[in-house]
């Protein structure tokens, strides 16, 4: 195979929404038979570019060349006919149907009368797996009985069955354990050896550096540059992505936990049959695990035991904060005891999108004496005080746009999250429950948020940090518990942090 042949080439492709450029004059090409990374922060235009390529949204100008020929890709089916296939972040698989039926959908071998030839499809799939060295045998299993990693493999096999030559994978590692990630990339390398072209959309620089041949960096809808992976490094890519020098690991001060940490007393204790966790003063305790292994339920029980304690733990648990049993406390009672919360889902649980920053900042603090005063009808909210507080926090956290009257739904994910952090810290809680603080947040904001969390820790506050980014936990935490199958499956002290070992426990080992 000619190594310089290109599979896909973008030539001046632009895509606008109103007068906002989601993609502006994209120029880059993807070599046939290579693994090509496409990186950039959230909102940099990676997804839009791939939607244009996959025919979901038409380009406004410019052209796309597939195998050297200019084509107008009308819709995903057309893209598939051209040999372009995509593994979406949310899998296109029906839970209650079998693997075989899911794969052959739309391309079923069948008789004249429409009878499915499942045996024939299966033979063909087994041949494909053999040719590409993929291991898979559970053709008759239902999708819901497979692990996430296996489901992803089904998606890849589906693309091969549809004879895709270019495979686009959108953030494929977000839901995988490190072991599954390794297996995925081993498989992708095999596909590459057989001449397939792979496009990897990612925001994780490490995996892009480790597994790709070349990488295109996007920022604010434009291509910043395309590099050969072996000739670049993390710092350079990060700088291209963000537009300035950034550090991905927290490099500020990290106060050594003093003797108080050795004290056996804990500030928060949650004991139940399956989950038992203790939080010591002044530490950041990480909660790791593949999504859907009980972390969500644990957080809900911690933050609102009056409802979720019964629902998820059947009322059989002990929950103590500062030595006080609070098994059926409401969120307000918790708040008054100094427990603060950053919920899992920013948009559905933390913010009112169609209200401004002041209203959002006030959520849960509407009875705080700092923001209320005696008025005509008793205790009333004092808007001026709230506004002053919001403006102070806009300064402190560098929230943009810096106007307290902006609807939070119009702000970027990073700025929304900064507002949520500001609100969390405003009543000066002593225990912080923080979930996915950097999910869908740009690198600049990540730094700010990590700094804020670390600062609280260094002030002696205690933090439980839930995250699906193992790197983030390793970077910040003093201790980590790993969830698997609704239980605490392992615990690691900071000096034992090793992604590989933790990954094994995440996978159930």
């Amino acid at each position, binding site marked *: 195979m000619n190594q310089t042949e290109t599979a896909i080439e973008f030539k001046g492709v632009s895509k606008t929404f109103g007068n906002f450029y989601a993609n502006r004059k994209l120029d880059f090409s993807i070599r046939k038979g290579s693994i090509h990374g496409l990186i950039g922060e959230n909102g940099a235009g990676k997804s839009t570019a791939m939607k244009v390529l996959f025919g979901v949204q038409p380009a406004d100008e410019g052209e796309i060349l597939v195998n050297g020929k200019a084509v107008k890709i009308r819709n*995903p*089916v057309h893209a598939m006919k051209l040999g372009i296939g995509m593994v979406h972040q949310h899998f296109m698989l*029906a*839970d*209650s*149907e079998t693997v075989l039926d899911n794969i052959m*959908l*739309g391309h079923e071998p069948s008789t004249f*009368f429409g*009878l499915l030839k499942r045996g024939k499809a299966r033979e063909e799939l087994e041949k494909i797996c053999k040719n590409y060295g993929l291991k898979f045998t559970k053709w008759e299993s239902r999708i819901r009985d497979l692990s996430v990693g296996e489901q992803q493999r089904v998606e890849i096999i589906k693309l091969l069955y549809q004879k895709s030559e270019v495979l686009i994978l959108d953030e494929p590692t977000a839901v995988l354990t490190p072991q599954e990630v390794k297996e995925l990339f081993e498989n992708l390398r095999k596909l590459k050896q057989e001449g397939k072209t792979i496009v990897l959309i990612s925001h994780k620089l490490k995996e892009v550096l480790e597994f790709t041949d070349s990488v295109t960096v996007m920022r604010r809808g434009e291509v910043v540059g395309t590099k050969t992976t072996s000739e670049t490094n993390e710092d350079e890519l990060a700088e291209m992505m963000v537009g300035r020098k950034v550090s991905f690991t927290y490099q500020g001060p990290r106060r050594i936990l003093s003797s108080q940490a050795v004290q056996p007393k804990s500030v928060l204790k949650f004991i139940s049959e399956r989950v038992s966790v203790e939080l010591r003063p002044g530490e950041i305790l990480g909660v790791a695990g593949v999504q859907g292994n009980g972390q969500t339920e644990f957080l809900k029980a911690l933050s609102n035991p009056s409802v979720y304690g019964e629902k998820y733990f059947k009322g059989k648990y002990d929950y103590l904060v500062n030595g006080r049993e609070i098994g059926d406390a409401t969120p307000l009672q918790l708040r008054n005891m100094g427990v603060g919360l950053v919920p899992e889902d920013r948009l559905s649980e933390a913010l009112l999108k169609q209200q401004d920053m002041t209203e959002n900042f006030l959520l849960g603090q509407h009875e705080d004496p700092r923001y209320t005063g005696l008025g005509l009808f008793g205790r009333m909210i004092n808007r001026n005080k709230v506004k002053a507080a919001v403006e102070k926090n806009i300064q402190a956290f560098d929230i943009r746009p810096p106007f307290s009257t902006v609807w939070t739904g119009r702000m970027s994910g990073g700025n929304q999250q900064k507002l949520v952090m500001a609100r969390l810290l405003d009543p000066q809680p002593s225990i912080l429950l923080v979930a996915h603080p950097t999910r869908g947040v740009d690198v600049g904001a990540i730094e700010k948020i990590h700094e804020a969390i670390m600062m609280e820790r260094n002030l002696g506050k205690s933090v439980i940090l839930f995250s699906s980014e193992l790197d983030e936990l390793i970077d910040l935490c003093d201790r980590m518990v790993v969830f698997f199958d609704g239980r605490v499956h392992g615990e690691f002290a900071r000096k034992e942090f090793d992604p590989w070992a933790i990954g094994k426990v995440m996978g159930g080992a």
Partner: protein
Amino acid sequence: MLDSFILPVCRVSAPLILAALGGMWCERSGVIQIGLEGFMLVGSFFGAVYALNTSNPYIGLLMAGVAGMVLSSLYGMVVLRYRANQIVSGTAINLFAMGIPPFFSKIWFDSTGSTPPIPTAAQFQIAPLWITLALVALSAWAYHSSRFGLRLRFAGEHPDALQSAGVSISWKRWQGILISGFLAGLAGGTLSTYLSSSFIRNMSAGRGFIALAAVILGKWKPIPTVLACLLFGVTEIAQIRLQGVVLWGAEPVPVQWIQILPYLITIIVLAGAVGRSESPKALGNS
């Protein structure tokens, strides 16, 4: 036993089974179908009309199916093309259907909502049972082993996957709706040309809803759905047999109490036995 119990159960179950199969196909494609009742009603009316006019019950039955299908196409237009709420539109279809037989019976027969009796020669003896059996077999086969069934199921389970495989979602849903209209129409046709000898006012009498309950009880799968219909058929026959029977004391149980039975069983069974919901994932979203 055969003549006194099994055959009557099959007779009263046949319309339920036909309507329920229609409902199953429609809901499997992702569209809620509460209009079965209305399709059955127009089916039973037009079935009687054509059986009368042609003296051929087969033509009557066929036209019953066509009438149901025509009405279902109106439903399809409203929910697929104009994306109206499926529960509300289904209710509207049922109400609309209630007005159709009186309207035409006034014009054609100068009566307020019934047809003259169908002569014995133009009535069915046993054929609808065989037709039902054939359609059950065809449905079960198509559901599990045909390309059509696979694609239609995905329209209800994961429409995005179907679309990305290059198959039109709305075409599958149209098929589901039209099949439900045709089968429920047939079901209505058997009421007037097989189970009795004319169309009478409000002939479907809630059977469309019982059929829908059977679909839910059968977890949207063909054979369990048919079994659920047979269960309702058994209670229906039991209800008829128990009328006027002295169960305890000196007086028979009032007939109204006995007539509640099929409906009561429907409620109890639905409330108690459904267990884990297995409804199509995308049911009702369009």
